[in-house]
C-alpha cells in the first residue's frame, strides 16, 4: 500500500513535469523519483530480511505475493544497497533545491545559482558507498563504519531541516494572505515528501551491505526493528507515511489543477476572442463608415447655416461612438505593447485619471503608493486596463447601493509588484465567476457597457507578463490581485533601500 502511494506520487509528479517543464517541476519530479527509489530499496530489503508481522506486511506491500516477489528478486547485496544509497543521498539534495526553487528571498536566489555547492556532500556520500569502496575502506573498521553512518545521517537531516526552514521562511516572507494560502499547497507537497523520507532515512545502506553481519546490527541497531518504532508504534509510523503520501498526492493534484485551469481558461478565452474577432471587425468597419458618413452629413448641415445645441449634441454623440468603436477594435484585435521601465505610481496615477474620466464621481482610496518601485510597462495600455477594473469595482459598489470608495493598494511580493483593487459590491455569483474574463460578457444592463473591459484588462496584464486573480464573497465585495514582475534597477532611479 505504501508502495502504491509512492508510485502514484511519482506518476503525478511525472505528469506535472510534462505539463510544466520548468525548474520547479524538474526538482519535484527528481525528489519523487529519488524517494521512490529509496522506498523501493527499503521494501526489497525488508522483504528479504523479514521480522515484520503479517499486518505490517499488509501495510507495506498489500498482497503477500508482492512481498514474496520482492523477497526473491535476484540482486547482489551491493546492488540493493546502492539502490538505497542513490535514493537516500539524492532526495535531500533535490528536496532542498525544490524548496529554493519555490523561494525568492536573497539567500534562495543566490543558492539557485550556486546549487552545485549543495551537491558536494551527496556526491561524497555516493562515492563512499560505492560497494567496492565501502568494502575496502569502510566496512573492515567498525569505528570508520560508525563515523560514515553518523556523517551521512547528520547531513541528510540537516538538508531536510534546511528545506523545511526555507519553506517556512518563504511562507512568512509573503505578506498577502491570498498568496500565503496558495503557497500552503506547495509547502504541503514538499512537507509530505520530507515526512515519508524522514521516517525511513535512518535506513543506512551499510545495513544492506552487511546483511548478515552482526557487527553493524549490534553497534547501530537495525532501523526498522528498533524499540522506538516496534509493534504499535511501527504501525503508527506506517500510517503516518500513508497520510503524508496521500497529502502529497492531494497537494500536487491541487497545484496541477490550478495550473491546468489557468491554461484551459487562457485557451478558451483566446478561442472565444478569435471567434468574435472576425464578426466584430466587420461590424466595426461598417459602423465606423456609417459614423463617418453621418459626420459628413452634419458638416454639410452646418455649411447650410443650421446651428443649434441639438447639432452639437449629435456631433458629440458621433465622436463618442467613434471613440468607443476604436476602443472596441483595440480590445479585440491583437496588439503589441511597448514596455519601458516606469515607476508603478506613474501607471497608477494615469489609471486614476482615466477612471475619473470614464466614470465621473468615482471614489477611490489610493493613499500610500510605494515609491521607487519600477515595472516594465506600457503606461497607456496598463493604466487603461487598471482603470477598467477600478470602474468595474465602483459600478459593483453602486449596484450594491453603497458608496464606499474602491480600495487601491500596492505591495511587494518577493519578485512581484502586487496591485490590489478591492470593492464593496455584491460579489460575483458563482455561475459568473468563470465568465467575467470572457469577451462581450457583462452582468450589467447598460447600453454603454459592451462587456469588453475585463477581457481587455486581463489581456493587457498578461502581455505585461503578469497575472490577475480575484477573490469574491457574496454581499461583501470582490478583491482583484494583479501581479506584475518587479523591475529592480534601483541605480537608474537613484533610489536607495
Amino acid at each position, binding site marked *: 500500500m505504501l508502495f502504491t502511494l509512492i508510485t502514484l506520487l511519482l506518476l503525478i509528479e511525472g505528469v506535472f513535469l510534462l505539463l510544466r517543464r520548468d525548474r520547479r517541476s524538474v526538482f519535484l519530479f527528481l525528489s519523487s523519483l529519488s524517494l521512490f527509489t529509496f522506498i523501493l530499496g527499503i521494501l526489497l530489503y525488508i522483504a528479504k530480511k523479514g*521480522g515484520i508481522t503479517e499486518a505490517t506486511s499488509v501495510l507495506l506491500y498489500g498482497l503477500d505475493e508482492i512481498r514474496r516477489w520482492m523477497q526473491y528478486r535476484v540482486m547482489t547485496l551491493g546492488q540493493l544497497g546502492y539502490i538505497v544509497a542513490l535514493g537516500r543521498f539524492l532526495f535531500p539534495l533535490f528536496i532542498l533545491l525544490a524548496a529554493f526553487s519555490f523561494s525568492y528571498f536573497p539567500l534562495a536566489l543566490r543558492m539557485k545559482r550556486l546549487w552545485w555547492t549543495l551537491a558536494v556532500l551527496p556526491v561524497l556520500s555516493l562515492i563512499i558507498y560505492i560497494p567496492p569502496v565501502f568494502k575496502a575502506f569502510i566496512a573492515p573498521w567498525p569505528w570508520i563504519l560508525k563515523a560514515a553512518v553518523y556523517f551521512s545521517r547528520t547531513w541528510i537531516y540537516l538538508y531536510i531541516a534546511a528545506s523545511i526552514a526555507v519553506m517556512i521562511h518563504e511562507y512568512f516572507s509573503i505578506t498577502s494572505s491570498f498568496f500565503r494560502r496558495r503557497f500552503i499547497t506547495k509547502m504541503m507537497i514538499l512537507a509530505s515528501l520530507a515526512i515519508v523520507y524522514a521516517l525511513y532515512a535512518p535506513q543506512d545502506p551499510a545495513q544492506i551491505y552487511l*546483511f548478515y553481519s552482526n557487527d553493524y546490527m549490534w553497534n547501530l541497531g537495525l532501523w526498522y526493528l528498533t524499540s522506538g518504532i516496534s509493534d*504499535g508504534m511501527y504501525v503508527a509510523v506506517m500510517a503516518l507515511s500513508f497520510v503524508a503520501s496521500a497529502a502529497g498526492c492531494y497537494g500536487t493534484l491541487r497545484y496541477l489543477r490550478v495550473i491546468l485551469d489557468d491554461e484551459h481558461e487562457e485557451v478558451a478565452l483566446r478561442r472565444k476572442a478569435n471567434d468574435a474577432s472576425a464578426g466584430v471587425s466587420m461590424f466595426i468597419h461598417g459602423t465606423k463608415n456609417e459614423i463617418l458618413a453621418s459626420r459628413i452629413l452634419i458638416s454639410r448641415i452646418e455649411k447650410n447655416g443650421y446651428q443649434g445645441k441639438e447639432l452639437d449634441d449629435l456631433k458629440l454623440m458621433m465622436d463618442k461612438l467613434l471613440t468607443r468603436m476604436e476602443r472596441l477594435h483595440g480590445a479585440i484585435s491583437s496588439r503589441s505593447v511597448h514596455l519601458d521601465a516606469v515607476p508603478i505610481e506613474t501607471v497608477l496615477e494615469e489609471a486614476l485619471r482615466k477612471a475619473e474620466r470614464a466614470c465621473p464621481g468615482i471614489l477611490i482610496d489610493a493613499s500610500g503608493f510605494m515609491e521607487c518601485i519600477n515595472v516594465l510597462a506600457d503606461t497607456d495600455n496598463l493604466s487603461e486596463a487598471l482603470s477598467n477594473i477600478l470602474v468595474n469595482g465602483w459600478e459593483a459598489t453602486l449596484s450594491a447601493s453603497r458608496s464606499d470608495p474602491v480600495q487601491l493598494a500596492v505591495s511587494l511580493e518577493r519578485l512581484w509588484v502586487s496591485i490590489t483593487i478591492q470593492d464593496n459590491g455584491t460579489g460575483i455569483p458563482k455561475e459568473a465567476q468563470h465568465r467575467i474574463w470572457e469577451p462581450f460578457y457583462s452582468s450589467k444592463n447598460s447600453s454603454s457597457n459592451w462587456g469588453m473591459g475585463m477581457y481587455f484588462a486581463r489581456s493587457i496584464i498578461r502581455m505585461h507578463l503578469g497575472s490577475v486573480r480575484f477573490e469574491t464573497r457574496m454581499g461583501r465585495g470582490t478583491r482583484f490581485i494583479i501581479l506584475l514582475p518587479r523591475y529592480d534597477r534601483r541605480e537608474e532611479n537613484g533610489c536607495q533601500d
Partner: protein
Amino acid sequence: MKKAIAIMLIALVALSGAFAGGSSESSDGLRTVRVAYMANYASLWSVVAGMRSGAFADQGIEVQLVEFADGPTIIAAMESGSIDVGYIGHGAHRLCINGQADIFCFSHVGNGDAVIGLKSHGVTEDPASLKGKNVGYASGTSSETILRWTLEEAGLSFDDITAYEMDASAITSAMTSGSLDACATWSPSSFTILENTGDDAFILSDNLTFSDRTASIASWIVMPSFAEENHDLLVSFVKGLYAGMDYRAEHEDEVIGWVAEVLGTDFDTVYAQRGDAEWLTSAELVSQIEDGTIESLYEVQKAGFGENADQSATIDSYVLFDVMTEAAS
C-alpha cells in the same frame, strides 16, 4: 481531504491499539510470547507441534510467530524488545558465545548447510571445479563458512572464484534461473534449488562433510536480561517445546502438514526437509544433557568458530542447562 485524514487517523489509533502487545497477558489469560523463526521445518517442527497440539496453551502461553531471514537479525530484534525468544541456526551461535544472547533450549544438530553446483555450468564433484565460477553466498553466515571450507579442500580461496554476496532468497532465485554456477546456502533453500533444477544441481559438500570440524547446532535463544526476569516463563516455554518434540515423534506427517500451513507451502516441500537433522524427543534430549553429549557438541561448535568467537567463554556461561533440566522435571 479533512475527512480522509480523520479516517486515517482513527484507523491509525485503532491499529496501534490492535498491534500493541509483546510479552503480555492476552484477553483469555494466556501470556503472549513473541517467537522469531526462520522459514523452514527445522525452525518450526517443535514450536508448531507445541502450538497446534495445545501444549503451550496448557502452559499458559500463547505463541505469536514472526518470520525472519537469519539469526543475527533475530538477535537484533530481541535486543530492541520487539521479540521475546527466537530460533537460531549454527552461524549466529557465535554471538551467544560472545555474550550477546543466552541459549535456553537445544533444538537439534542439523545438516542443512550445503554447497550446491550446477553440472551444466561445468561444476563437478571435485571442489577444484569451482575455480573461476560465479558462486553466490551469504556473507557472515554458515554459508560463508562451508564455502570457505569447501574451497580450502581444493586449495582454493575466495580470490579464485567470482563471489556474489547475496541474501538467501536471491541465491535461490539466481540458482534456479541459472544466473550462478554454484552457491552456498542452507535448508530449505538448498532443497528448493535441488527440486527446481532437476538432475542438474547436486550437493558438493554439506555439514556432514565437515563433521570433524564443527557441529551445526540449532538452538532457542533469549536475551540474558529477559532470561533473568522471566525464568518461570522460559521453563514453561521449554515444557511446551518438549511436548511438541514428543508429539512430532508420534505424529510426524501431521506436524509436517501444520508446518506447511504456517509456511504457506505444500506438504511435499516440508516433507523433503525431514532429513535435515536427527529430531530428538524430550527424553532423548534430557538424557544427552545428563550424559554431557549436548555440552560436548557446544564445545565442538565453539572450537569450530576459532578466533571469531571468545574461546575463553565456558559453555554454561551462555547455555542455560538449568532451564532445560527444570522443564524436564
